[in-house]
């Protein structure tokens, strides 16, 4: 199996693609490091698939540069790019057996029969399908098809692997299992991987880094932790995880207030006038009788609108002012159960000042 040495970095510069007057890609710059698992995350129509197809060569941009390593690839046809690709619907060849599907790229490269067989076997082993080489495609389950598509994409040792929402057709349980397997596989193969999804949880689970994209522009490119904890803008904050955004007022002493609650001072590196506070439901916690240190916490007081029990967690919607409400998520262990209140009851919510997320409005 290929080691990390075969991986190549991808350097994308100024990639632009217009459909009519609409920018599918708007001057995108992106560096994918060698051997990295990078996810393109965005809603449908955001340009993520267009970007992936441009890397694969199926979509010719209007302008830009795509380097694999040092080599300019933007003008190369798809079949000369040496890129493994997994499609959303797998696109397995139904008139070929599992083994024939996996052998397809090797045969195109005129690899000797013995070596070909050996590599097909290895690849099928890697995806745990060694027994099924002779099966027809229509005899496979969805998860098995997914694995065949994967084996076919990496058997010829491409330096880059591209995946277009490969798990979206699977049911939730299998999808979660495959996410872990894909992560393992990536570690084993060490190949540079670009993965497209609209599922933020999937992106957080699998990626070394996530590139959030919307309206053909990259919004933020960073590790899952940074993306979640320090979203660059309201789109990222809203798209990834649950969040409530509270508008803040800037007072003359450069302090930010929400409804007479002092939130923070204006971050000095940026010049924006208007700021918003991003509150994640699970970072909030309901307060009991005993008071907490208000130097280290923000405290919101309000009335319960609705509280919902969901098994492993529960949440409550709390109205904290005329126009604003917060959602708080908490555990359902014995000590927390008392926070499942009736609508109309008073509730106090705390937020650790370290968990404050500010974004420009």
């Amino acid at each position: 199996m290929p080691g990390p040495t075969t991986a190549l970095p991808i350097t994308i510069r100024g990639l632009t693609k217009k459909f009519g007057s609409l920018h599918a890609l708007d001057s995108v710059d992106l560096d994918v490091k060698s051997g990295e698992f990078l996810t393109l995350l965005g809603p449908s129509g955001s340009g993520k698939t267009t970007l992936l197809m441009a890397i694969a060569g199926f979509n010719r941009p209007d302008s830009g540069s795509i380097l694999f390593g040092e080599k300019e690839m933007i003008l190369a046809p798809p079949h000369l790019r040496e890129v493994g690709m997994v499609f959303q619907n797998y696109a397995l060849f139904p008139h070929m057996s599992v083994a024939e599907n996996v052998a397809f790229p090797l045969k195109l490269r005129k690899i000797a029969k013995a070596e070909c067989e050996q590599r097909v076997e290895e690849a099928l082993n890697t995806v745990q399908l060694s027994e099924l080489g002779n099966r027809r495609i229509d005899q496979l389950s969805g998860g098995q098809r997914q694995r065949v598509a994967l084996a076919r994409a990496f058997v010829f040792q491409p330096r880059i692997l591209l995946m277009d929402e490969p798990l979206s057709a699977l049911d939730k349980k299998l999808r979660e299992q495959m996410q872990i397997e894909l992560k393992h596989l990536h570690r084993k193969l060490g190949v540079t991987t670009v993965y497209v999804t609209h599922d933020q949880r999937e992106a957080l689970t699998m990626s070394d880094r996530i590139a959030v994209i919307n309206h053909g522009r990259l919004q933020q490119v960073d590790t899952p932790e940074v993306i979640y904890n320090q979203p660059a803008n309201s789109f990222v904050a809203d798209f990834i995880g649950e969040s409530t955004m509270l508008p803040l007022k800037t007072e003359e002493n450069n302090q930010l207030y929400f409804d007479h609650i002092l939130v923070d001072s204006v971050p000095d590196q940026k010049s924006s006038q208007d700021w918003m506070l991003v509150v994640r439901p699970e970072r909030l916690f309901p307060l009991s009788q005993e008071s907490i240190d208000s130097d280290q916490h923000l405290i919101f007081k309000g009335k319960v609108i609705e509280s919902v029990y969901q098994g492993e967690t529960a949440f409550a919607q709390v109205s904290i002012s005329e126009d604003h409400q917060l959602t708080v998520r908490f555990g359902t262990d014995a000590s927390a159960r008392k926070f499942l209140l009736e609508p109309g009851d008073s509730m106090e919510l705390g937020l650790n000042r370290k968990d404050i997320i500010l974004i420009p409005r």
Partner: protein
Amino acid sequence: MLLHEKELRRQTFLEQWNLLSLSLPSILVIILIIIVPVGWLFYLSFTGKGGDFSLANYEKMITYKSYARVFMTTFQVSFLTTLVCILMGYPLAYFMAQLSDRMAAVCMLTVLLPFWTSLLVRTYAWLVLLQKKGILNDFAIEIGLWETPIKLVHNLTGTLIGMAHIMLPFLVLPLYGAMKRIEKDMTHAAANLGATPIQVFWKVFFPLSLPGLVAGSLIVFVLCLGFYVTPAVLGGGRVVMVATQITAILENQFNWGAASSLGVVLLASTLLILVLAARFLKLDQVLFGRH
């Protein structure tokens, strides 16, 4: 920074033209067989004896009564054929649309078999069936429907029978397709809301099947307009439609201008009907009976 704008544009251009050029052989055949000859006829129809521009051929069409009669016959035969096809095709399509897929496929064979059989063979079959000493006359006399053999062929009756038989599949196929697309939930819902079966049919099912009926009828009508073989054989010279007249002019007078002008009018009426009906028609679906 190199952004390869020019090369990318050139590549896109080349790829699209390379792809499109695959259709070039077909385009050339169509130009050679359809566009140039029909264009030539168009030109001939506007050319006088001396080779100059002239509307004489079209003026004749208005002044000579015989032309008017040909057009009358053509529209009459086309209209009646379409009517017969609707009366027979609608119940048949309705019947088949309610069968299980398997049974429907078997019944569909009875529609497809004539569709695939040479129209010459079918015309011949009717000629044999309908002649004075033919099976139909023998049978009718035997069961006492009429006493002496009736002339059923070489006249309008025979032409209509033969043409309706040949055209029926063109009506049934799109109509059946349209009926199959009507969702069962619609009729369920109507029945659930208290409509009687007859109301359900006339207020829900029939209007929903109408696009298919219109498409099928139009295709039948348009095909009838230019029909040649069946009227020529079963009409026995007594049913002169436009296509028959065109060949007669060529055979007897060798007058290309007159024949062409008739052809141009035929084409123009066909196109006019198709354009007016374009919103009902999905040409590729209707013209070839795949459903």
